[in-house]
């Protein structure tokens, strides 16, 4: 669909930048929470969004998912899939923050550790959502235009020939 666009150098470099940004943020956010899964469970519970029994699996899995997806993006491995997964987590966070905002629940989003109820959490929501929308855009961009320089994908999906513009379609097929 975007075959012509994807071949442009600036698009590829933009993908490179996008995956570094969202990837780095995901790694940091996940790594902070990783050693303290119970705190992560509490942060999830504070949203009062998920059914109680789901909060523990989500609280445990989320930091791991963040770190893994972040690493994939920074390394440029399975960029298309990782880009969409990163975008998906951002959508989930945006929904979560919108939910607590709409319900007037004042919490620390727990985005980078912490979490739970706080005094003036609501004031932070617009900025948090703006940040997540920006990261969402990075993820979507990487999902749409997964080819980029300095990516392990270039080795993984190498066809054994010097890359040509026509490669893009083949590349997309192989990952579909």
């Amino acid at each position, binding site marked *: 669909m975007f075959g012509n666009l994807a071949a442009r150098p600036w698009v590829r470099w933009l993908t490179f930048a996008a995956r570094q940004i969202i990837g780095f943020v995901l790694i940091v956010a996940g790594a902070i929470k990783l*050693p303290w*899964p119970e705190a992560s469970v509490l942060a999830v*519970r504070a949203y009062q969004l998920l059914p109680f029994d789901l909060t523990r699996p989500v609280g445990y899995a989320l930091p791991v998912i963040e770190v*893994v997806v972040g690493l994939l993006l920074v390394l440029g491995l399975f960029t298309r899939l990782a880009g969409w997964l990163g975008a998906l987590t951002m959508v989930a966070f945006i929904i979560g923050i919108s939910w607590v905002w709409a319900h007037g629940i004042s919490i620390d989003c727990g985005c980078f550790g912490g979490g739970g*109820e706080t005094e003036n959490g609501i004031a932070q929501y617009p900025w948090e959502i703006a940040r997540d929308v920006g990261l969402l855009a990075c993820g979507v961009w990487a999902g749409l235009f997964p080819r980029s320089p300095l990516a392990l994908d270039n080795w993984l999906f190498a*066809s054994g020939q010097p890359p040509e513009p026509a490669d893009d379609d083949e590349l997309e097929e192989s990952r579909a």
Partner: protein
Amino acid sequence: MTQSRREALRRQQESQQRAKRLQRVIIVGAIVLAVVVAGVFATIFISQLNKPSAVPGASAGVPVNATADQSGIIVNPGKFADGVPKAEIFLDYQCPVCKQFETTFGPTLDDLASKGEIQLIYRTMTFLDSNLRNDSSSRAGIAAACADNAGAFAAYHGAIFAGQPETEGTGYTTQQLRVDFAATAGITGDKLTPFQQCYDNRATADFVQGTNEAASKGGVNSTPTIMVNGTKLDNNTVFQQSAEAFRQTILTTKGNG
């Protein structure tokens, strides 16, 4: 002829390359998945290590005055009549506002409880352990539950808050929980050894974890939370009340059921 043979050769090469690539993708994909699974299990394992749990074989897990559903401890068992308001206080022993609440309204609650005008239940939570990255809330909860078996729950509860460190996160020392608070609460003589054994074996650890879970499950995410007949009181209102107004609130709040 030559043309088509070259074409065939090229196709063969291409399909070989494609197979190789597919293999590579599958291997790398499998490695990534393995890392994810290992990561999840490592996280679960580490969190289990951080959690205080009962020493295997320890007995006397549930304090004598626990509520029937083991979600808390009744402060004034046998002193209240049927139909009096049920006041439930959700607290974490490391929470400074809980100490403030205890200091301000504890005497009122104790008075109401000892006169049998209310049923008073303390529901211990331990989530600050996760936030503060220590295990003092759990250990204090375990000790308080042990104190109930020594017949000194309310006194020990008061002693913990009286000895709460100035800085949130400092936590409680073993000396404080085993010896100092016990002395303050009047756990002495024959009662001291069983109390300390109970604490050393973390005998009530599962009970305390259960009270925390039950509170979270009931939608309580912060402490102190005061519930009367199942209705949550608004903390902003409560903390501006005089002791007398608070007493009236407790006595007159209708249930939600």
